[in-house]
């Protein structure tokens, strides 16, 4: 974890809350995912985030329709300011910036979500197994998790990315390896606290099979924190992919937001004042990450009622109890 990666802080901080208050953080009744989604849609912040995210996904899917052809063809027309013909202008290599941004969203979002799902799946598996199967396995998995957490992420990313064959597969693999450990720790502590609750004890006593308990009793109650972890990893993946590609360690022949920024920098766009080649991809990353953060915000509020911006009286004002 570095000082420039706040998402991990949020996840880790959120983790330590439920440890002390198992009952308050997770509703006792079986919270089915559908319930979560519905209350999410009603939350203002999450709704806004979902809209933005859906917009980007839609644009990504429609990129071949809106901007047909190969956006990375090098032409001789050089960099041109935004105009009616090129809404976002062209790069110093004569490529249309809007087309590059639209096509770039496909690769960036794909990598982000694949890594998010993969890393969360691994983390979930590790966390659940750790929580449920007893001390020896727990200690072993904890050790592995902690070692991965303590390995310096960026250097590891750099080494793996520099020397595996370039391609999206490599980037996804590398980001999954460096991104799963944070979630595993969080999910493990959450799973542990749920395991200690009465209804799980009841299930064990009545003889439910271990796997069934893991997936039908514990997991549904972790829905919100799994979602928070997933979104956090997606944010990490999109940002880390951009960082890797900017350093030239990604696959430069793939069109993605990170490689757009890489080429903009290497063709001297900022130096020459061609800001339009540099701004859209960075802004796109920011908006997607922000949308995901908003959704995360919402999930947090939905699952932890105290965080809701409802009409709870603000602490410290209003009624002074006694003077």
């Amino acid at each position, binding site marked *: 974890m570095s*000082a420039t990666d*706040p998402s991990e*802080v949020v996840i880790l901080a959120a983790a330590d809350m439920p440890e002390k208050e198992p009952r308050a953080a997770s509703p006792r009744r079986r919270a089915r995912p559908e319930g979560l989604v519905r209350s999410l849609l009603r939350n203002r912040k999450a709704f806004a985030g979902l809209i933005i995210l859906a917009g980007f996904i839609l644009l990504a899917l429609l990129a071949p329709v809106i901007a047909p052809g190969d956006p990375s063809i090098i032409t001789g027309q050089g960099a041109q300011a935004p105009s009616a013909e090129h809404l976002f202008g062209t790069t110093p290599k004569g490529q249309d910036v809007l087309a590059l941004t639209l096509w770039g969203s496909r690769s960036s979002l794909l990598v982000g979500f694949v890594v998010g799902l993969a890393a969360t799946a691994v983390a979930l598996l590790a966390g659940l197994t750790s929580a449920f199967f007893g001390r020896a396995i727990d200690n072993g998995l904890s050790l592995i998790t902690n070692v991965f957490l303590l390995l310096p992420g960026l250097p590891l990313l750099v080494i793996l990315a520099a020397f595996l064959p370039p391609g999206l597969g490599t980037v996804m693999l590398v980001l999954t390896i460096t991104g799963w450990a944070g979630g595993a720790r969080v999910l493990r502590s959450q799973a542990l606290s749920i395991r200690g609750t009465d209804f799980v004890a009841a299930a064990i006593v009545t003889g439910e099979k271990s796997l069934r308990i893991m997936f039908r009793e514990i997991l549904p109650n972790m829905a919100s924190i799994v979602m928070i972890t997933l979104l956090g990893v997606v944010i990490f993946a999109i940002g880390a992919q951009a960082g890797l590609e900017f350093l030239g360690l990604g696959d430069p022949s793939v069109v993605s937001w990170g490689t757009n920024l890489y080429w903009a920098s290497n063709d001297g766009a900022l130096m020459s004042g061609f800001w339009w080649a540099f701004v859209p991809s960075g802004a796109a990353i920011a908006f997607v990450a922000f949308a995901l953060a908003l959704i995360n915000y919402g999930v947090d509020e939905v699952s932890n009622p105290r965080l809701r911006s409802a009409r709870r009286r603000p602490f410290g004002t209003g009624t002074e109890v006694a003077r």
Partner: protein
Amino acid sequence: MQFVLRRLGFYLVAFWVSVTLNFLLPRFMPGDPISRMMSQSQGRMTPEQVVQMQALFGLDDRPILQQYIGYWQSIFTGEMGVSISRFPSPVSEVIASQIGWTILLGATALLIAVVIGNLLGILAAWRRGGALDSILPPFLVFIGSFPYFWLAMGALYLFGVILGWFPLRHAFSAGATPSFSPEFIGDVAMHLVMPVTTIVLVSIGGWMLAMRNTMITTTSEDYVVMAEAKGLTANRIMLRYAARNATLPAVTNFGMAIGFVVGGALLTEVVFAYPGLGFQLLSAVTALDYPLMQGIFLTITGAVLVANFIVDIVYVRLDPRVRVS
């Protein structure tokens, strides 16, 4: 005490695993450093020189197990060998020359982000629903969503080039001699402003949000309600009761973050040409400089483990419940 011993045991095992990984990883990389130098020189190095240089650099071709044992020996003696990409400077010299700046940059940024972020988080939780709470967290998270290098380059361009308010690069003005005079310290401070500010901007949102959420949960605890009922002032409850408990997770995260400060801030060093181990590691990796890579990895791993261990001990003092669990 038992808790401390268990943690120590864990850290020793983690150290061994990390060291082994640090040893194995570079050896999986294809290619060799001299050929890479050749590609960089683009024809200025002659083919005859390459052969001789391989002998000169003394590239190790002992069996892997021997190299592994030799690596452990070097860890205990502190002799990390001679760097290939900066031949013949010894690895320890290369690291020592930059670690000071790395720590200065990283620690300053981290401290500012943590202190201000947590304070803002406390304030935001205190005035739930108020102006601060509604605007600042989303705004800071939005700023933090931008890719760091994008923000840094934009800031560099805006404040350094166009407005000219701050120096564009390096840790101090070229030609100045390091000393403890107020002028030099002022010079260093001016050069720190942009790198530190950009790092703080990107990370502060996370600290603030985490603290805010923790505070809110804490303030709804029974003992806080009890304190209110007893008639303690809001200020006192806020700071002496709620905040003290809410900072516990922040302490853990701070500990982890402090360790990684030694790893340097790669993108900051690249954009602001700030001397540091982050870029040094990247260039060691791309130049296939095994000794330097191993040296830096070792330094980072050691620092992270030590920092975590210290934090664990401190945490035990802060939170007695941990001893019992």
